[in-house]
């Protein structure tokens, strides 16, 4: 863990030194450095993965080397920044530290950051997409030391963009364990809040109002819960908001920010397919800035070429590989433009057909939205479908957004209209936009409207609205923490447990609390090679301590060939679902010895190869 922290610090310093060259200062400096640091890690993992060199010494060595160069290149700027900060501190500390109501909100926000950060270190990964998809991708690539395509029937592992899994694999490789892996999204929570603050401040809002506005995003229950989940939605949100706030910062010339925007777009399209929507919108805003600044077309073309290269380098790999292997860059999604078709397995409409909660069935679109925003539930989770945006959005964000919309209509101004258009178009283009984790970026931008409203109010209305924001923000935090997936008993138990025993199988509730997973964990050696069948095996809990068990998928063939093939591959245990083809095949071969059977999983043992 200390190595991971030190390396993060070193990468942060290198990124700050590099970005300081652009002339960015204040929040803009930290936001740019955040994007650069993320881009560096992803680029490093892509290059080392390409070379089949995902080994700890290479990962640490390369990051140390690259950032040593960055620090050497920018150390004068770092020193000048430090001196500048000292002077500013001397001059403004009385103003900065003056007691204000906004300190209460900051205290709440920092408290939630600290609590979730501590929970992330204490608790194991617990959520569906992480355990079934993102963490198996990271673990299986670590096992193969590279980015060779994983042979699996699970489409989520087989073909989706996986920059998020690269970040997870990076923490696992550097720390040599998975203790911090579910904090991969946590820094992007901070990045998102800082970006909203910067964005509001750039729009001319006072600092304290800008902080209040960021609460709509920073204290939303789904954001709080995502910060400790191995998903990628918060990474996406943090990066989009950071990019947007740099784009709207007219102090930074577009030619300076273009390479950074290129990095961000690459990261976004490599995180998930929905990143394409945000990348297209952000690229459009950059072009608009070129237009604002009357950038000569030759220079603009050159910049766009560089930006395109960075985008493809950091996010194009997954699409290129799908196109090459599967004939469709966005497989398994079917894409049809008139007669031109990229064949897949489903369209976005059919994919989300079954995901909608029963409570929304039969309602009109706007009724669905209203129902979700009213949150008729107390079951809070990172992937919740009947709410998650919290009371701040419904009671404060939404009316304030209405004021902003009316104002933009009556008195259009350049950036406010662009930002509100960005939020609305992104919202409209997002499939199943009742699903709250998909739309946190649009909701975050509503926080700007709260900042703008507060900035305009006189003393008593401002204090009243601030107090209401604080109470509702605190209430949302309470809902996320006390009605989320983690119970206080879980916390007490995991404080008691030795670090090596802090596994998801010991949580009170969750995806990994299946008895088969616990039996497997306690009775199968961590060094065993295992095979799995399909029909929805959640793989990560079966991979054992630090995902040391090598997991293979070998398609079933007629007896006795399959048993022999598994034995040839060194497999000693097979995990299958009862209704799977693999279980049918195992039942036909007497040499598979059944060791465990419940309604969800069966586990067979194979004789080790003589």
């Amino acid at each position, binding site marked *: 863990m200390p190595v991971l922290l030190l390396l993060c610090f070193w990468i942060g310093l290198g990124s700050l030194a590099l970005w300081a060259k652009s002339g960015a200062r204040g929040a803009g400096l930290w936001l740019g450095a955040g994007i650069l640091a993320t881009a560096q890690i992803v680029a490093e993992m892509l290059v080392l993965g390409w070379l089949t060199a995902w080994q700890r010494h290479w990962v640490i060595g390369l990051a140390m080397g690259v950032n040593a160069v960055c620090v050497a290149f920018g150390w004068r700027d770092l020193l000048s920044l430090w001196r500048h900060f000292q002077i500013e501190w001397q001059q403004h500390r009385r103003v900065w530290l003056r007691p204000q109501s906004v300190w209460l909100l900051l205290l709440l926000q920092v408290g939630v950051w600290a609590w979730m950060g501590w929970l992330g270190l204490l608790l194991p990964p617990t959520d569906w997409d992480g355990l079934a998809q993102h963490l198996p991708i990271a673990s299986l690539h670590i096992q193969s030391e590279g980015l060779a395509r994983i042979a699996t029937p699970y489409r989520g592992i087989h073909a989706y963009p996986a920059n998020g899994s690269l970040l997870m694999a990076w923490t696992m490789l550097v720390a*040599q364990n998975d203790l911090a892996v579910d904090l991969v999204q946590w820094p992007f929570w901070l990045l998102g809040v800082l970006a909203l603050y910067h964005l509001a401040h750039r729009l001319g809002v006072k600092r304290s109002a800008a902080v209040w506005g960021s609460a709509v995003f920073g204290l939303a229950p789904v954001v709080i819960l995502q910060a400790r989940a191995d998903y990628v939605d918060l990474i996406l949100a943090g990066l989009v908001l950071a990019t947007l706030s740099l784009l709207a910062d*007219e102090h930074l010339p577009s030619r300076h920010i273009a390479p950074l925007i290129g990095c961000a777009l690459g990261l976004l399209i490599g995180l998930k397919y929905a990143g394409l929507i945000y990348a297209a919108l952000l690229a459009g805003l950059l072009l608009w800035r070129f237009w604002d600044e009357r950038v000569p077309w030759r220079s603009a073309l050159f910049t766009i070429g560089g930006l395109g290269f960075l985008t493809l380098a950091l996010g194009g790999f997954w699409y290129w590989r799908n196109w090459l292997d599967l004939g469709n860059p966005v497989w398994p999604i079917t894409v049809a433009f008139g007669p031109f078709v990229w064949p897949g397995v489903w369209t976005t409409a059919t994919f989300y057909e079954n995901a909608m909660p029963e409570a929304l069935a039969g309602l009109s679109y706007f009724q669905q939205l209203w129902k979700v925003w*009213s*949150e*008729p*539930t*107390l079951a809070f989770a990172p992937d919740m479908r009947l709410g998650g945006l919290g*009371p701040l959005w*419904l*009671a*404060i964000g939404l*009316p*304030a957004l209405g004021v902003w919309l009316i*104002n933009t209509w009556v*008195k259009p*101004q350049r950036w406010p209209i662009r930002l509100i258009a960005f939020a609305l178009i992104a919202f409209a283009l997002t499939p199943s936009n009742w699903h709250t984790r998909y739309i946190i970026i649009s909701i975050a931008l509503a926080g700007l409207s709260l900042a703008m*409203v507060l*900035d*305009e*109010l*006189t003393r008593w*209305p401002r204090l*009243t609205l601030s107090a*209401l924001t604080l109470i*509702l923000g605190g*209430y949302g935090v*309470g*809902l996320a923490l*006390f*009605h989320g997936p983690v*119970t*206080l*008993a*879980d916390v007490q*138990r995991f404080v*008691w*447990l*030795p*670090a*090596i*025993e802090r596994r998801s199988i*010991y949580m*009170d509730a969750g995806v990994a609390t299946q*008895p088969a997973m*616990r*039996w497997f*964990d*306690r*009775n*199968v050696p*961590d060094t065993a090679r295992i095979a799995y069948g399909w029909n929805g095996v959640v793989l990560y809990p079966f991979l*054992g*301590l*630090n995902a040391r068990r090598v997991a293979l998928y070998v398609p079933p063939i007629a007896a006795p060939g399959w048993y022999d093939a598994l034995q040839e591959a060194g497999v000693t245990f097979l995990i299958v679902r009862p209704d799977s083809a693999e279980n049918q095949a195992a039942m036909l071969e007497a040499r598979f*010895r*059944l*060791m*465990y*059977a*419940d309604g969800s999983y069966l586990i067979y043992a194979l004789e080790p190869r003589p």
Partner: protein
Amino acid sequence: MRLNLDLKAWGAWLLIVLMFVLSFRYLRAPERQLFGAPITQWAQGSTMEANLEAQTQLLSYGRPLIEYDGLNFLGCDFALHEGQAQLVMYWTDIQPDVNYTAQLRVQIFSTEGMVEYTQPITTSILYWPLPKDYYFEMQRGDIWLRLVQSASDDLIRPLWALPHIAADGWLQICGT
């Protein structure tokens, strides 16, 4: 750039009233009972059971990992009572006439040796204390099992075992 929303005083108060109405509507939803839900949950959570119990259903789901004449070993589990880690063993098909004692060797990192425990197999779930030194950083020690006749200390050899049987009759168990 500087925004100007031009909010009049009455407009500002109207907006705030609307926000209060929506807040009240949100808080008084039946699920939340104003401030009742988070507070109740906090109170319930603070008294919830943090111990980790043995999973009795594993007695019906598990198949023998080691078969002896007169009983079968179904595998290991882990329990936690007031912060004390415990090893759990599941046994099944215990015949009334068998009188076996389980011997357990647990690897200890501090002394680089083994600590040995014995316990007669009288029930289908046996609990064993796991000493603190069983863990070291991100490692846990090996665990070995063998059975002897309670009366004579004669070694009981398994009829079949998934784990490898050492020459002296010890079997490495619990996935270690």
